[in-house]
């Protein structure tokens, strides 16, 4: 006698544990992302209209329109976005993920990650670095110029580099990084270093000029978050097949669009359960405060959904200097996440937790029973379009997302006649 839910969750966890996220190449969004079209921009989080978009999402869309050559000024871009000529869809509906605003436009280069155990792919743009960047809602001339450099120099060099190198096993790289002080959400220093060490010889073997190779290496070296845009699609590729496991209560998506937080649960397929996104408790850059903060935004909490990121903060004590709290808090956060998860990762082992595997497989039943919400560490964007990042901190999803999902799940069991009278 096997209980339906336990059997389903066992299947879901086996999918997560045996996933093999592998970097297989790069391409342009319009050429490789399923369903990507010229009049479509992808964004972070659950579905949203231009009217309801917060500042950073709007800023990202405006930057995207200027980058695509569809507008020549922020005013023209805002007018174009509101005209109805442009369609919007979540990254998650196209096997993609995007940090912060998560805007993906047709011309943007993307990493291609394949989960070689299950054959599905995931896509993510290349990380732009820190400062004034599209993902934080900035749209000044320097933002557009940098995106153009990424398309014309960074992308072709990296594309040829990966062709020369061959596929890169991201699961092993993440497993190494979490033993080197990263949790691969807001701290990617070790993972980025490992990645550069892996690909540097292949960069040198490409057909590009020394100036271009040096520029690429210097950019990768300058940006500790290079690996974030690999850890995110690695998590997405690992979790996506879970969304097809019937009757499983495991969460396979958490994402925010800056207005709402949304989750998706395996048994309930592609349906989103949303509630207003929270303001983040964190450390603000000089001159900024909570008053300036936009609510929680970005697809990057796909890392927490997998059990890394905030769930594995114990392994990244240095991160508290960026997001707030103490190393003791980081251990406490990780310890509490075992309360709401199903297994411990067989791959991602955390030294400060005596090499316990990271807390894996969020179960909506456990979240409701214990009232312990997932912990997420995150960047904070300014609420106005055009400004950019103002800090970083800790946030949790609204409980309402999990309550709605549990209700829908019970309705599903009732509809299928699976509950005893």
């Amino acid at each position: 006698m096997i209980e339906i839910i336990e059997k389903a969750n066992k299947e879901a966890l086996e999918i997560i544990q045996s996933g093999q996220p592998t970097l297989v190449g790069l391409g342009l969004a319009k050429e490789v992302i399923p369903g990507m079209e010229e009049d479509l921009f992808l964004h972070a989080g659950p579905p949203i209209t231009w009217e309801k978009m917060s500042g950073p999402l709007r800023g990202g869309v405006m930057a995207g329109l200027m980058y695509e050559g569809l507008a020549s000024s922020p005013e023209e871009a805002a007018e174009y976005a509101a005209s109805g000529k442009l369609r919007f869809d979540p990254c998650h509906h196209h096997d993609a993920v995007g940090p912060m605003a998560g805007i993906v436009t047709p011309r943007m280069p993307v990493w291609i990650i394949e989960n070689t155990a299950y054959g599905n792919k995931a896509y993510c743009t290349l990380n732009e670095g820190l400062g004034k960047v599209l993902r934080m809602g900035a749209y000044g001339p320097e933002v557009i110029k940098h995106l153009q450099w990424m398309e014309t120099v960074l992308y072709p060099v990296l594309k040829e580099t990966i062709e020369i190198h061959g596929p890169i096993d991201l699961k092993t790289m993440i497993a190494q990084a979490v033993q080197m002080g990263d949790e691969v959400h807001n701290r990617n220093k070790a993972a980025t270093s490992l990645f550069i060490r892996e690909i540097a010889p292949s960069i040198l073997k490409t057909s590009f000029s020394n100036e271009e190779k040096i520029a690429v290496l210097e950019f990768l070296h300058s940006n500790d978050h290079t690996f974030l845009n690999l850890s995110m699609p690695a998590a997405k590729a690992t979790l996506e097949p879970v969304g097809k496991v019937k009757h499983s209560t495991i969460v396979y998506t958490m994402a925010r669009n800056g207005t709402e937080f949304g989750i998706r649960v395996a048994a309930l397929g592609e349906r989103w359960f949303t509630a207003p996104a929270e303001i983040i408790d964190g450390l603000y850059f000089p001159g900024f405060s909570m008053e300036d903060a936009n609510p929680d935004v970005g697809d990057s909490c796909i890392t927490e959904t997998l059990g890394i990121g905030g769930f594995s903060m114990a392994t990244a004590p240095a991160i508290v200097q960026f997001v707030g709290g103490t190393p003791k808090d980081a251990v406490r956060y990780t310890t509490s996440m075992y309360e709401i998860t199903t297994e411990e990762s067989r791959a991602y082992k955390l030294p400060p937790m005596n090499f316990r595997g990271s807390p894996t497989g969020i179960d909506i039943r456990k979240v409701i029973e214990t009232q312990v919400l997932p912990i997420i560490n995150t960047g904070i964007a300014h609420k106005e379009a055009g400004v950019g990042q103002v800090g970083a901190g800790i946030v949790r999803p609204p409980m309402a997302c999990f309550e709605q999902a549990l209700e829908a799940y019970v309705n599903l069991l009732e509809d299928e006649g699976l509950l005893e009278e």
Partner: protein
Amino acid sequence: MSIKDLFGQDLEVINLGLKSFHSDLKTQGVKSVHVNWKPKAGGKKNMLNLLSKINKVKKL
């Protein structure tokens, strides 16, 4: 043991519920451990009802 005997010796307290009880005891130098405990589903009746329904799922 009678209550009188209990309070006649050094107290070692395990506190459940309001953390202020634990904090007050600590202030007075009493050995106290606070247990991070909440009632199931935060005591929300609708959520408890849903959880009890899930427990009635049929066996395969």
